[in-house]
């Protein structure tokens, strides 16, 4: 037993120690309160956001792409609905029994059943829809609809696929869509301040974007804006209820200037020959016809080709993927002659009275080299107008001989050569307007006078795409007042190219038009065969692109044994005269005669355009 004194000190000792512990915990409690305070008050907004992010899940909603129309309001590219059978798994316990019941009227393949069984448990856990069957036939839909009261958890959902109604006609102009790659998707989403998330797809093929043509160039307008659906979720990611819906904004429809009837005519006339047709409305530079041949089915590309089909297209010698209209490089050949003639007038080298003697060839004074015309014996005494109508080479050889290449280049550049003439074409080639510097860099040779002489007849180094030739044609038709080309012309924004020259008068332009009308209408015209194919007046200039230079007709007969060495047929034209509305260029590879091979195609397309107006 302890005595009273000790008891007293024990009591004090006990109190001290108890207080000590209480104070110790008191301090800790203060820290605890401070910690709670900092969580709940100081950092409240951070944690509020974290809590909100925890319980919400965002879904992207894929927008519907815009529809692409031709200039008459005909649909070219549409969104074709397909129907999928969708299961809401939330209240389904026995998936096999459900499959068994469905299988009685809609046949599910073993692979489909296996797939459903694989994905079902997880989909049920997370409360995500299960696709039971894709692309239902109308019969299957009907069979389901009469029984749907028995399947409250199943519904038919609409999904789209991108469909070109004329899969071969617009392959190169409208182009096609394909799967969006991850990087591009991120770019699109971040432009909308969105993040990559689970997506509610509108298209059965998933994310789409334009790969070529108008689908590519106008992708931003066509694609629309992604929408957002916000769900409340629990910790396991299971969807509980929809909280918010920001609907996707469908893409803008694109009303192109393309003209379906003329497009059909051009495609049929080309008939799978290698070549291209480009026609424009010269009032605003809008492209109405744009065909590269041979073609391919864009729908197959967009919806998945087999490897075999793909290899076949890729390995085809005729290169169906190649867009000849925008990327094919062809010498303009004799079609360039009106431009060269105008240069002569602009530089006061000649006037419409000026004549030369055409013996059928031109001898380059520097080295005595002979440049031949197409007609043996030549055209005799000939002026500019007849030189265009009869396509005298000698006349333009000697005219070009009197020019400086740099001046000639500057002149031809106005006509669209060597530059991009289209606002919204897909990957257009600029062709080639050669210069001495270009020749030195590329061929390591200086520029010869003979090179300039060759440019005078559109041969040699110069080449142009069918779009550029169509532009050149439109430039002649409008007397040098033409908009930059576009598939979707908005004349307010159009980039007008107005050609000014003190020396070239309206009369000069009229004479050029008259000469080009003569190419068809004059008895001596090189394209006289076209006269009977139409009942209005067309101005034209044909050309024959020599791929191999030959001295005589006999030599050419040997050359043409190989199809790939035959001359390209080429023609530019505009109509109806005297107030032209359309300009056109036609190239047919290895078609040999501009007037009689490319010509009928051009006339047929112009017929379609002029008659349908």
């Amino acid at each position, binding site marked *: 037993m302890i005595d009273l004194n*000790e008891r007293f000190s024990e009591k004090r000792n*006990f109190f001290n120690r108890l207080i000590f512990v209480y104070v110790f*915990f008191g301090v800790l409690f203060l820290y605890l309160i401070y910690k*709670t305070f900092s969580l709940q008050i100081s950092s409240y907004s951070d*944690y509020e956001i974290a809590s909100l992010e925890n319980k919400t899940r965002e879904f992207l909603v894929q927008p519907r792409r815009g529809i692409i129309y031709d200039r008459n309001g005909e649909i070219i590219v549409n969104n074709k609905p397909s129907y999928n059978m969708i299961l809401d798994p939330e209240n389904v316990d026995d998936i096999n029994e459900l499959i068994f019941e469905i299988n009685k009227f809609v046949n599910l393949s073993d692979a489909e059943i296996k797939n459903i069984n694989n994905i079902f448990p997880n989909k049920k856990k997370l409360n995500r829809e299960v696709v039971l069957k894709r692309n239902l036939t109308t019969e299957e839909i009907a069979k389901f609809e009469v029984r749907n009261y028995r399947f409250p958890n199943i519904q038919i959902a609409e999904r789209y696929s991108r469909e070109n109604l004329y899969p071969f006609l617009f392959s190169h102009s409208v182009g096609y869509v394909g799967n969006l790659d991850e990087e591009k998707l991120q770019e699109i989403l971040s432009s909308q301040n969105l993040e990559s998330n689970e997506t509610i797809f509108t298209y059965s093929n998933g994310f789409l974007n334009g790969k070529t043509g108008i689908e590519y160039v106008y992708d931003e307008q066509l694609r629309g804006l992604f929408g957002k659906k916000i769900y409340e979720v629990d910790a396991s990611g299971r969807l509980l209820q929809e909280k918010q819906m920001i609907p996707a904004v469908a893409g803008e429809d694109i009303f192109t200037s393309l003209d379906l009837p003329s497009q059909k005519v051009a495609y049929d006339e080309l008939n799978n020959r290698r070549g291209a047709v480009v026609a424009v409305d010269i009032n605003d530079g809008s492209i109405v016809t744009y065909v590269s041949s041979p073609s391919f089915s864009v729908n197959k590309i967009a919806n998945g080709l087999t490897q075999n089909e793909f290899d076949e297209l890729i390995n085809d010698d005729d290169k169906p993927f190649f867009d000849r209209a925008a990327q094919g490089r062809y010498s303009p050949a004799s079609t360039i002659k009106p431009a060269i003639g105008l240069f002569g007038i602009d530089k006061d080298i000649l006037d419409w009275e000026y004549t030369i003697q055409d013996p059928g060839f031109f001898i380059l004074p520097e080295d005595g080299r002979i440049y031949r015309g197409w007609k043996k014996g030549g055209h005799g005494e000939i002026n500019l107008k007849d030189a265009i109508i009869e396509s005298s080479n000698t006349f333009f050889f000697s005219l070009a001989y009197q020019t400086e290449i740099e001046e000639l280049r500057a002149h031809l550049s106005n006509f669209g050569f060597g530059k991009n003439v289209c606002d919204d074409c897909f990957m257009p080639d600029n062709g080639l307007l050669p210069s001495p510097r270009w020749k030195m860099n590329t061929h390591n040779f200086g520029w010869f006078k003979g090179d300039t002489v060759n440019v005078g007849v559109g041969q040699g180094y110069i080449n142009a795409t069918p779009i550029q030739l169509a532009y050149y044609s439109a430039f002649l038709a409008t007397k040098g007042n033409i908009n930059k080309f576009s598939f979707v012309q908005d004349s307010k924004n159009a980039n007008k190219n107005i050609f000014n020259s003190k020396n070239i008068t309206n009369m000069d332009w009229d004479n050029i038009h008259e000469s080009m009308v003569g190419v068809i209408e004059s008895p001596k015209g090189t394209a006289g065969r076209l006269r009977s194919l139409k009942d209005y007046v067309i101005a034209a200039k044909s050309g024959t692109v020599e791929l191999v230079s030959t001295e005589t007709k006999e030599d050419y007969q040997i050359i043409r044994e190989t199809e790939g060495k035959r001359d390209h047929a080429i023609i530019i034209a505009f109509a109806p005269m005297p107030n032209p509305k359309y300009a056109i260029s036609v190239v047919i590879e290895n078609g040999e005669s501009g007037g009689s091979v490319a010509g009928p195609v051009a006339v047929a397309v112009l017929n379609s355009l002029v008659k349908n107006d």
Partner: protein
Amino acid sequence: MINFKNFIKDKIYIDLYLFISITLLSIMGLVFLYSASQGNIETIIKQSFFVIFGLFLMFIVSQPDPDFYKNNSAIFLIFSLVLVLVTFFFGKEVNGARRWLDLGLFTLQTSEIIKVALPVFLAAYLYDKPLPINLFNTFTTLVLILLIVNLVRIQPDLGTSLVILIAGLYILFLAGLSWRFIGISSGIFILSLPFIWNNFLEPFQRQRILTLLDPNADPFGSGWNITQSKIAIGSGGLQGKGYQMGSQAHLDFLPETETDFIFSVIAEEFGFIGVCILLSIFLFILLRCLYLAFDARDRFCRLTIGGLSLLFLSTVFINLSMVVGIIPVVGMPLPFISKGGSSLLSFYIAFGIIISMATHKKLMQK
């Protein structure tokens, strides 16, 4: 009816401050638990039964004279040890741990009883020992504590064993353990920390400690609980999201909402204001205990009140520190709030004993 009021005063031992505040806490606990259990009626009925039974038990336990506890403390300790041993061999295994004894009506977590029995026994053992406690008594006590702690630890039940250890050490400390001994043993303990880390902690326990230091290192793995708890508390803000409106709790982001993390649910739904109200009730109980300890009739009562109130304080503190991320996650309920009958009953008993110690002094004076 001679004097009914006096009769009650003389024959019934009750501390109204503690009784009312604990009853209030218990009722609040039921309200919180209803939300934390996502409106599970069965849980609430069961818990209500424990609360009513517990309050009754607390009343019963506070009636005997402290001498009754002093004289029988060894029997109580041996009885509870037997229960633990029985659990060890015949207990119900849940998640690899044998902590529960199936009593038909409910399952008893037997280690919870030791939590109370040990401090009472130690107080009874040490109350008449001269000051400072000599080395022999210190060691005897320590060995006993460590034996019992280890018995619970291997169940395994880290949380409860920790509380038992703390409760035992409090009594030793309050009884007058020499400061020199405290200094030396703390030094040894700190030096042996790496050894304990390597040899006594399970990998998951080490992970919990590491997680505490940097919960963001693995927010979806071991840091999940702490991260989600902090989000729940933080997003409660000043006023809370409203009763049963806590998304963290109701959408399953928060783990163990009915037991360990019930404070997070309260903080989420009632905000900082709710937290302050709850903590002030705890604080009131603790300060009342402090007063009662000062006022106790003898050393045994002082030690017991002090030890049991510190046991309560530590449990509350460990639970709160855990959910706000100050200390690692250990299984520790919030007294009178969390679901779980055994822990609830043990605290009712503890407070029953405290009330008995505090109220019987008057009789002595007579």
